[in-house]
């Protein structure tokens, strides 16, 4: 425990900006994003890869940042929820649809859903309802019952909502 372990330095591109980060090898990517890079939109909901709140894009792929060590990320391109809005700061289609459909309440799981849906809808332009629900099955939300989130995905694909009043 008292043995000295040297820090690692990695170069990461985060939301388009290159950053050098020096940290302990054991430091989780989620913690480095939040503490070293001060991008606190990436939330830590379980730290065992089950809730999806910490999802970010690494080289374009949606992954759990709590299941990676920052030490592994040398040369990686990372997009966090702070990097999703349009360049002028307006909400992206996914973000706007989440707002239109009340896809968030407390907002804590929301960054993970925004990243997940952004990646999924980039790769699937016309998913079925089952595919949408499966795509977000790795993200837990305790507030919405997922209905508003599913409707948000439907909106992005240009489809009607289900279960209206």
């Amino acid at each position: 425990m008292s043995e000295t372990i040297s820090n690692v330095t990695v170069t990461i591109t985060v939301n388009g900006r290159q950053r050098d980060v020096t940290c302990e090898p054991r430091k989780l990517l989620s913690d480095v994003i939040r503490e070293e890079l001060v991008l606190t939109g990436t939330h830590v909901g379980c730290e065992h890869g089950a809730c999806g709140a910490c999802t970010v894009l690494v080289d374009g792929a949606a992954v759990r940042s709590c299941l990676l060590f920052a030490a592994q990320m040398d040369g990686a391109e990372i997009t966090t929820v702070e990097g999703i809005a349009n360049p002028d700061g307006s909400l992206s289609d996914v973000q706007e649809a989440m707002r239109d459909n009340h896809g968030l309440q407390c907002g804590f799981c929301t960054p993970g859903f925004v990243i997940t849906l952004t990646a999924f809808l980039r790769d699937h332009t016309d998913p079925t309802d089952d595919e949408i629900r499966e795509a977000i099955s790795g993200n837990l939300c305790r507030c919405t019952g997922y209905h508003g989130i599913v409707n948000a995905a439907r909106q992005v694909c240009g489809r009607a909502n289900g279960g209206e009043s």
Partner: protein
Amino acid sequence: MKPSKFHYHAPATIGDAVGLLGAHADEAKVLAGGQSLVPMMSLRLATFGHLVDLNKVDGLAGIERSNGHVRIGALTRQATAEHDTTVASDVPMMAKALPHIGHFQIRNRGTVGGSIAHADPASELPAVALALDATLEAAGPGGERQIAAADFFEGTWQTALAEDEILTAVRFPVWGAASGFAVEEVARRHGDFAICGAVCGVELDGDAIVRAAIGLFGVGPTPVRSTLAEQALIAGGAGSDLADIARQAADPLDPSDDIHASGAYRKQIAAVVVRRALTKAIEEARS
């Protein structure tokens, strides 16, 4: 929930990686996708002095077909294999099993070799490897060796790999054209580890079954191959009473209880998933 300290190594060659494992013996652990390992480290259920990250090792990822086999490099991401056309056409059981692993974000990072080497008895890929008679390629200080899947899984999270050996690839035999495969599992929620699951394959010659594979997972400390049931199926052909074959597959099992299901439930459901998977596999083989 933060991991305890470790030295981080990112070797560029498999030889270096094996060397690091040898040098640090039981203090070292291989890191591939990390989707099972990192949470165990964060929960401090596992601590290692040295982590040997394979992600920078050249040549560990890739899918190629040769000599009647499909060879999948150990570091191939599950998502890559899931969407690979060679896997889809030549190892359909694998392609059907992959979407059951966790969630797509997990598969984006998780590796084929990592899942097999981790040897969780409730996960799909070890059962696929076992059912299909896969060959596992391992690198160690003495060079490469090949391990039959039947000899690989020794217990929960325990394999035939030595401490200083690394799984480098998995080779799956390619079945004939008149084959069908199916994966059926019962999990509490989508993406959960299965309470019980079956991977089945049949190769037909008319109504005769010339090759059969029945693998089960979530029913014991290792994946289970139901050789007796396979033989009965081959003996009976495509018109066999599949419920009876499935019961033969389930009969020898002695699964244990956990919070998600009783052992008795698992055993009962094993027969259901085998029957359902065989039904689908035979349908597919006929079409």
